[in-house]
């Protein structure tokens, strides 16, 4: 397979990389290697780690960081942003519809079975309209590239997308170790993300809120894999970082226990899954949730971001209908393309998938983190046979996609440039009257040669992502 190299075209740098490439060529390679160690020390000192479940001794790990930036031209970015905003607008309209009149089902665009039998669909949300009609306040749209103008959406993360702290810390680190690069290249800023997030959440505060809204970030606690990010965002927004046992419902308000008594919260940016949010309404055994918060929410007493039930939009089976969903709600053709997807629940598709397992990527509908998937071309005959069994047993649990020729960008490997596959997660903030996409996002990079899975739980790393100014 041929892969699109984002930096080099037949050995010569592509336009967006020209200035960086010239700088790179002039650098002492030994020095660059040292900078790599320096960057790692910065991450370790600042405690930017993630926890890996089920590994006792190495429970806090650094995500590998690569010092070669990924560079996107202003023109390329402008086109992408249009597509992203269109898609996010459609996702919000879809969420409102699906919890109200369900026009899209009535119009026969989406089979109703897909909603009715879906765990991510919350009956408790039927008829609920959150302030400003915003359901998904923070969205991560995972993109992959296969050519100069070919971007595909790999998946939508409308539930609780993570990784934004890495985007910000990657930039901080680059600014620390290569300050000169930023005077040579005009890179669009990302560091106002926390302030923008705060403003965006404030704009979605409940109606009764006339003062400056009180914002809190709800975390499962210090053992959660993304705890660093939860603390980081709360800190940067000037919000409180709360756990369920800091919260009580008092006088029909959701309040946090402070050193001076209980104070009501107006907007809760929760980083806890739907199932765990409220033991009275969802999983009764959850210790992470707040009993009764759903009742206050439904009565309009608090804003929850993202709204419970948003996850139905990033379900992988719904994904395959996304171009239709965009057309239905915006009346326009989707600007961003979907990856061709076979729904294994459909007998014809299942037959095709089983016959072509060696060429396909098969994913669990509710899976994430690169777990429970099959990458056909990289699997052995035995692995494929084993997976085929699972697939036959429960076909509607799977979708399949062709193996994409993911673009590569170089990483610094033993002092040399070496191409590695990447994806991109831009972060999108939704307020009632505007949608803001932070220029760039999180680039995840497979650190191993040829590997197509970039997830951090699978050893993937990250790099700074530059969107150049015009």
């Amino acid at each position, binding site marked *: 397979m041929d892969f699109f190299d984002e930096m080099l075209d037949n050995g010569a740098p592509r336009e967006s990389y020209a200035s960086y490439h010239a700088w790179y060529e002039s650098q002492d390679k030994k020095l660059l290697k040292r900078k790599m160690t320096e960057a790692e020390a910065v991450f370790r000192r600042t405690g930017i780690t993630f926890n890996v479940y089920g590994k006792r001794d190495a429970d806090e790990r650094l995500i590998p960081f690569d010092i070669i930036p990924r560079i996107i031209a202003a023109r390329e970015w402008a086109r992408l942003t249009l597509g992203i905003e269109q898609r996010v607008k459609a996702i919000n309209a879809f969420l409102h519809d699906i919890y109200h009149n369900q026009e899209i089902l009535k119009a026969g665009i989406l089979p109703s079975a897909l909603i009715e039998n879906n765990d991510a669909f919350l009956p408790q949300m039927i008829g609920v309209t959150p302030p400003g009609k915003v359901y998904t306040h923070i969205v991560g749209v995972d993109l992959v590239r296969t050519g100069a103008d070919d971007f595909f959406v790999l998946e939508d993360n409308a539930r609780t997308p993570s990784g934004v702290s890495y985007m910000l810390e990657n930039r901080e680190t680059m600014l620390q170790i290569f300050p000169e690069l930023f005077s040579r290249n005009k890179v669009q800023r990302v560091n106002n993300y926390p302030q923008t997030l705060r403003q965006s959440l404030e704009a979605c505060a409940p109606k009764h809120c006339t003062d400056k809204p009180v914002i809190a970030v709800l975390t499962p606690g210090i053992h959660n894999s993304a*705890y660093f990010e939860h*603390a980081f965002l709360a*800190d940067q927004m000037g919000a*409180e970082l709360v756990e369920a046992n800091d919260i009580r419902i008092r006088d029909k308000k959701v309040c946090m*226990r*402070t*050193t001076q008594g209980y104070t009501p919260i107006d907007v809760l940016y929760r980083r806890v899954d739907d199932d765990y949010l409220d033991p009275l309404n969802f999983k009764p055994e959850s210790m992470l949730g707040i009993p009764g918060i759903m009742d206050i929410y439904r009565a309009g007493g608090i804003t929850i971001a993202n709204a419970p039930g948003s996850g139905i939009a990033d379900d992988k089976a719904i994904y395959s209908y996304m171009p239709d969903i965009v057309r239905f709600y915006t009346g326009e053709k989707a600007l961003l393309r979907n990856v061709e997807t076979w729904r294994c629940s459909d007998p014809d598709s299942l037959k095709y998938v089983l016959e072509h397992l060696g060429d396909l990527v098969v994913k669990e509908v509710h899976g994430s983190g690169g777990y429970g998937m099959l990458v056909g071309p990289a699997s052995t005959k035995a692995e494929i046979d084993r997976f085929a069994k699972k697939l036959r047993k429960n076909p509607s649990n799977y979708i399949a996609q062709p193996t994409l020729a993911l673009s590569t960008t170089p990483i610094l490997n033993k002092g040399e440039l070496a191409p590695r596959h990447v994806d991109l997660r831009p972060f999108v903030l939704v307020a009632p009257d505007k949608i803001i996409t932070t220029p760039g996002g999180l680039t995840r990079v497979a650190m191993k040669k040829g590997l197509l899975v970039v997830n951090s739980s699978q050893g993937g790393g990250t790099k700074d992502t530059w969107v150049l100014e015009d």
Partner: protein
Amino acid sequence: MLGKTAGSLFWMFRYMERCENTARLTEAGFYIALTRSKSAEDEWQSIIKAAGMESKFETLHDTYDGPSVINFLLREKDNPASVRSMIDLARSNARTARTALTREVWEAVNEAWLNICEALKKPVTPKGLPEILALIKRQTALVEGALQGTMLRNDIFDFARLGMFIERADNTARILDVKYHVLLPSVSLVGGSLDNVQWETILRSVSANRSYRWVNKGAISPKSIANFLTLDRSMPRSLMFCQCEIAHNLGHLNRAYGTQHESQTLSEALLNSLQSQTIDSVMAQGLHEFITNFLRQNQALGAQIESDYSFYA
């Protein structure tokens, strides 16, 4: 501020302070063991006793030999009060209170944790001990320095300092008590040369041997050392100094919040009773009785702070 955050700040600084004190205590034991010609087991035992870890130690070890004591105090995983266990707890509280700390303080704690854990990976040999103790003291001092230099003087700062001084008062009192219990088993030894060496060790364990000499012009007597560690206002590890700081921080908190809590009443009573004492009156009632009483009051004060400011659900 969240009650949980206040609790984490309070305990983070208690654990940091205890790390530092344990390092000082180990140093005192090491020093006396070096200056001994024969077995130093009694002294090592007194050190363990000062740390209040006798029963824990005896479940794990048969004899109070130097290497066992040193490793027990510094790095034993099964000892919840070893430096390694406590720096873990301090960092984990810092993680919980991350949003209340400046980047400098958080990085100082995180680095202390990284460096101390690294240094304590392998068993500590007598040869390597001085360097490791110096590292522990330096790393904890960096955290306190970052706190002083970068944090707003608000309630966050008050809770951090309250934890630090409640713990420090407790530690100094315990060290003094050991002198009574172990180092001074027989009245006939009072004033002898052995006695003076042991009192010096006490001073050393709170890093006060130099400052004591400045204040007292070189003369060493048990009474003036006891005075120095209990009632001297200029000595930053004395009971009086710690209680003055606690009263100050509680007063600041109450003014900022516009409240008057039970803990402030307790603190004022404790400070008043210290101020009404002289070292002669302390000795007259008995140093051990005085300390036992102080430890109980200091502990009650800590517990009252926890409940007044809703540290726990």
